Structure formats: C-alpha cells, structure tokens
C-alpha cells in the first residue's frame, strides 16, 4: 500500500464528494460495515462502485489449490472497490472484506454510467480518479512482483542448500550403514573363527597322536611278528614332502623305466616314496607277490594321509587365527599395533582373491603405532581389493611398508591400467566407482571411508600412477606412541 498518496486520495474523495453534491441525481448511499463483514463476494456480479471514506478493506482471492483466501491488497480511504468489475462488466475478481469498521459511499453502477456518458466534467473527473486509483494498484503490483521474485530466489537458495544437506546426509548414512555392515561381518567372522578353532584343535591333536603312536605301536618288539618295515614306511609317509606335479611325473617315468613290469596305478602309488624308503622295499618291488607290496604301500599312504591331514589342519588353524585377528571386536579400540600384522591378516583373509596375482611383499620393519586395528584392516582390505579389481589375472600387486622418520609409509601398487589423470582428484569422493558390476564392496565408498579412517589417524592417503603403469596408493601415518 502506498501511503504517500493518502492525501491525494483524500483530496479525490473530497473532489468526488463535491461532484456528488453537484449531481444530486446520483444520490450515493453511505454504507457502514463492521470489521470482518464482507463487502463484495468473489465471483458475484457487481452493480456498484464503492468509494472508501474511512477504514481499511482487505482484498482477498481464493486459491484454487489450497481453498484458502490469500490477501492480495489492502485498500484505505480514497480507494475504489468494484472498479474492475464495474468497468469490465465481469463478476468480481476479488472478494473484499472490512478489516476495520469501514464507511464508504456506494454508487449505483447504472446511474453512474449514465452520468459518465452525459456529463463531460464528471467524466473527466471520474477518469482521473480511476486512473490514479489504477496506477496506485499497478505500482503496488510491481513492488509485489519484485518481492515475489526476491522471495523465490531466497527459496531457491534454501532449496539448494537443503538438497546439498540431503545428499550429504545420504552419503553419511550410506557410510554408517557400510561401516555397521563391516562391523557386523567382523563379529560374525570372529564368531565363526572361534567355532572352527575348537574342532580344528581336536583334529590337530588327533593327527599328532596318531602320527606319534602308530609307528611306535608297529615297531614294538614284544609282538610276535616284526612290523619294523611297516613302521618305517608309515614314518616315511608321515615325513614325505609334497612333490610338485612335474616332480611326480618325472618320478613316475623313472620308476616306470626301472620296473617296467609294474602297472601304472602301482607306479603312481610308489612315485612319492623317497629313494631312502624305496631302498627298503626294493625286493618287494621285484618280487612276484603283489599282496605284500600292496600292504607296504598302504602303510606308506596311511602316513601320507596323516601328513596331509596335519598340513590341512594347520592351514585351517592359520586361517582361523587370521580371521580372528581380522574380525576382532576389541580392534575397535585404540591400541599400540604393528601395522604389518593387520596387513598380513588381511592378506590371509583375501588369499583366495590374490591367488591370480603375483604378490610382491616388502614389509620392512616399522615401529608400532597407536591405531584402531579393525579400521586399519578396512583400509588394507579396500586398497587390496581395488588393486585386484584393477589388475588383469596374472598381474602383479606390490605391497610395501617402510618408516620415513616419524611417519609410516604403506604403499599398494598394482599393474593394472592406472587411473585417468582427470579422475585422480575424484576417486576419494563418496560414490565414485569405475566398477561396472556391483560387487560385495561395490558401494563406491571404499576409498572415501579409507580416507576418513586415515585422516582420523592423523595421516594422509594419495593416489598416483606408478612409473611402470598401474595405480599406486600411498598411505602415510604418523607414529603415535600414546
């Protein structure tokens, strides 16, 4: 509302009042409205023009969407109500409602029009009044539009900020869910490892006992028969090394040539026997009594079965130890740890994935440092899995540790295609991934989380392309003693 024109409008009211006095035919009716009462209803036909003498009138428009009345304008003394509908002969565009007690003059539209058509002086005066009234409304409309534009811009900014906050929240949520998943997985792994550990220990003890007592049992002199040869072959089996497939093929060829009358299936069974033990059964190999040879070979194979069981169970045990360390719950605390232990555990856990690559480990001695072991394992896991996925089968993965003054430097280098220079800055951002398929770790969070963890430890992580191609990730962690 433009207050500066109030005086002009009052003057206009007086002017029109004078006009009214001159043209008594018009006989304007003085109307009084209580605060809150409706003067014009939106959409109704309007036959009158009102001139406000005193009080304030709200101009309202019903919103189609919300069915609420929106305040469009406020009119005061000197303003005209019903002007547009009177002029255009259309139903009221706005509703008008008295905000305060209102006094106004009501002119009958048809009388008004008659006078306008017949009296030039009145017409001119009324035109001036209408124009000043309309231009006032127009000015208010423009300033309103400007205000709307300003508000829209502000709203747009706030919307943008909200959107950014939302994205950040989503990323944080993903990170937390991911970390929670890993923590759960860690607990699960530790639990399973513990469950496997006990039967595995029983297995190992059983094998040890059998390996020790069986040969002794057979060679006890008190028995009527002498099982000395059986005992020796059993022992030879227990102590027998693992031969490579190539070695077995060579040994089979040799034995086949030496004893051409032996069947190939027997040659295969004899092939792992060391030459010392073979010398013990020389005569049985040449003799025509296959049963005795079978018997001795059985003894030898019981020995190799014990050996295989022992080796297999120690492999299970080593795996279990690594799994337990890797997934330990207490690794969520700050502890003084040698980072190489976590690296080795991670490598054991990932050994199946690493099978297809040549692994080059240079774990130079480094000082222990305060860190959260479980989180550091997450970093190693992410870096090593990334290296595997970036490298074609048969490629190389180099992992090194060294101490640079008060900093520990750990690098993971692969022989893959490297990182495009344009992407090198981006790869630590959340949800960045070049992997086409979704693997179990494929949230695109690996490096973002790794960076977060390393920064939490006061360190840094950087990606570069190695001189010979492939990507290199360098982690630097300061040595913290307490």
């Amino acid at each position, binding site marked *: 509302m433009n207050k500066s024109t109030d005086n002009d409008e009052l003057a206009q009211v007086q002017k029109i009042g004078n006009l009214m006095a001159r043209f008594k035919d018009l006989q304007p009716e003085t109307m009084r409205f209580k605060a809150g009462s409706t003067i014009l209803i939106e959409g109704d036909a309007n036959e009158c023009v009102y001139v406000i003498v005193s009080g304030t009138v709200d101009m309202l428009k019903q919103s189609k969407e919300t069915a609420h009345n929106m305040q469009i304008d406020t009119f005061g003394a000197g303003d005209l109500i019903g002007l547009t509908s009177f002029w255009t002969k259309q139903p009221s565009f706005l509703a008008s409602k008295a905000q305060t007690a209102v006094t106004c003059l009501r002119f009958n539209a048809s009388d008004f029009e008659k006078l306008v058509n017949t009296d030039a002086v009145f017409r001119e005066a009324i035109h001036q009044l209408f124009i000043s009234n309309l231009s006032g409304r127009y000015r208010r409309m423009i300033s309103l539009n400007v205000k709307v534009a300003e508000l829209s811009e502000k709203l747009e900014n706030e919307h943008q900020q909200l959107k950014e906050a939302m994205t950040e929240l989503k990323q944080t949520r993903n990170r937390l869910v991911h970390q929670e998943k890993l923590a759960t997985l860690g607990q699960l792994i530790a639990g399973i490892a513990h469950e496997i550990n006990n039967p595995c220990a029983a297995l190992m003890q059983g094998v040890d006992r059998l390996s020790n007592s069986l040969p002794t049992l057979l060679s006890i002199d008190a028995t009527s028969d002498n099982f000395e040869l059986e005992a020796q072959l059993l022992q030879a089996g227990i102590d027998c090394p693992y031969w490579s497939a190539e070695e077995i*093929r060579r040994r089979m060829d040799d034995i086949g040539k030496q004893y051409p009358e032996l069947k190939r299936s027997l040659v295969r069974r004899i092939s792992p026997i060391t030459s010392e033990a073979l010398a013990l059964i020389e005569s049985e190999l040449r003799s025509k009594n296959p049963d005795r040879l079978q018997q001795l070979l059985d003894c030898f194979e019981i020995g190799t079965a014990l050996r295989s069981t022992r080796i297999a169970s120690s492999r299970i045990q080593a795996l279990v130890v690594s799994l337990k360390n890797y997934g330990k719950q207490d690794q969520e605390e700050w502890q003084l740890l040698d980072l190489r232990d976590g690296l080795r555990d991670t490598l054991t856990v990932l050994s199946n994935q690493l099978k297809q690559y040549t692994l080059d480990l240079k774990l130079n001695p480094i000082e222990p440092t305060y860190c959260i072991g479980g989180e550091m394992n997450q970093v190693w896991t992410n870096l090593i899995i990334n290296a595997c996925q970036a490298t074609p089968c048969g490629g190389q993965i180099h992992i090194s540790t060294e101490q640079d003054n008060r900093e520990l430097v750990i690098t993971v280098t692969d022989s893959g295609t490297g990182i495009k220079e344009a992407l090198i800055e981006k790869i630590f951002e959340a949800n960045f991934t070049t992997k086409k398929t979704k693997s179990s770790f494929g949230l695109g969070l690996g490096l973002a989380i790794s960076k977060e963890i390393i920064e939490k430890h006061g360190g840094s992580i950087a990606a570069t392309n190695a001189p010979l191609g492939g990507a290199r990730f360098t982690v630097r962690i300061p040595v913290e003693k307490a």
Partner: protein
Amino acid sequence: MKKIYILCVDDEPEVLDAVQRNIADIEDTFPIITAESADDARKVIEQIKSEGNDLGLILCDHVMPGDHGVDLLIEIGNQPEFTQTRKVLLTGQAGLDATVKAVNKGQLNHYIAKPWGAEELMQIVKDQLTEYIIKTNQNPIPYMAMLDAAKLSEYIYKNGILSDE
C-alpha cells in the same frame, strides 16, 4: 597302441591327490597325468603330443595362479589334435560368465562343482571317455570292461564291427 591320457589340472595338491585316487581304477587303461597350473599342463600336453599319444579327457580347475582353467580348455580345444578331447571343469568358483565362455568357446562337456562325490566323478569320467572312444572311431573292445559296456556294444552293433552274420 596309442595311449589315451587323462589330464588333471589343479593348483591344490590335495585336490589332485583326491581326484586321482577317485579314478585310480581306470588308470591301468587310461594313464592319469597331473599338472598344477595351465603352464604346467601345456608342458604335459607337449609331451603327450611328442610321444604321439592321445588326450582323452581333461579335468580342470578354474581359478588357479596364472591362466584360468577355462582359458586353458579353450586353448586346448583349438588344437587340431585335441578337438575330440573331452573337457570337464571341476571347480568351486567359476562364475556364470566364465562357465558360459567355457561352454560356448571351449566346447565344455561337463561341469562338476566342488566338493564332488568319488562315485559321481568316476561315473562322469567313464561316460566322457566312452563318448571319446565313440567319437574318435576307436576299436571299443579293449575298453568295454572299463567303460559303459552297453553304449559301446550298441555302437559296435550299429557300425558293424561285429555283425550277426
């Protein structure tokens, strides 16, 4: 007579040991030969070729250090001497892609998932070798005791190696 070899390829010595133990009964008819990687298998294949012998069946693991089993099968299938060689994948972790590739490009004949059963393995080996004998038009008589006698008899009958006349 030419020897018909069975080649087993696996990087785990325990697996190789178990496989040859499971099929040991067949060894005096079809010599078994083992290799622990694709590279090692290539050496064995060269040796078989140079001695003028045949490779009837290859039983191969998939994930091994160095080249994968599927790639080895494809490579062997492309050698003219071994187009008829029966190819079996024995693996715990060949993904769908690798398996599809083995079927389409490596003429894979059978897929065995680890862990396997001893009798199942023996039966598969016998079936595959029976197919090999038939496809390569060999005289089936020496193998009848060891392989699928019914199938071989039918083959003999149809091809008139032994006739009713």
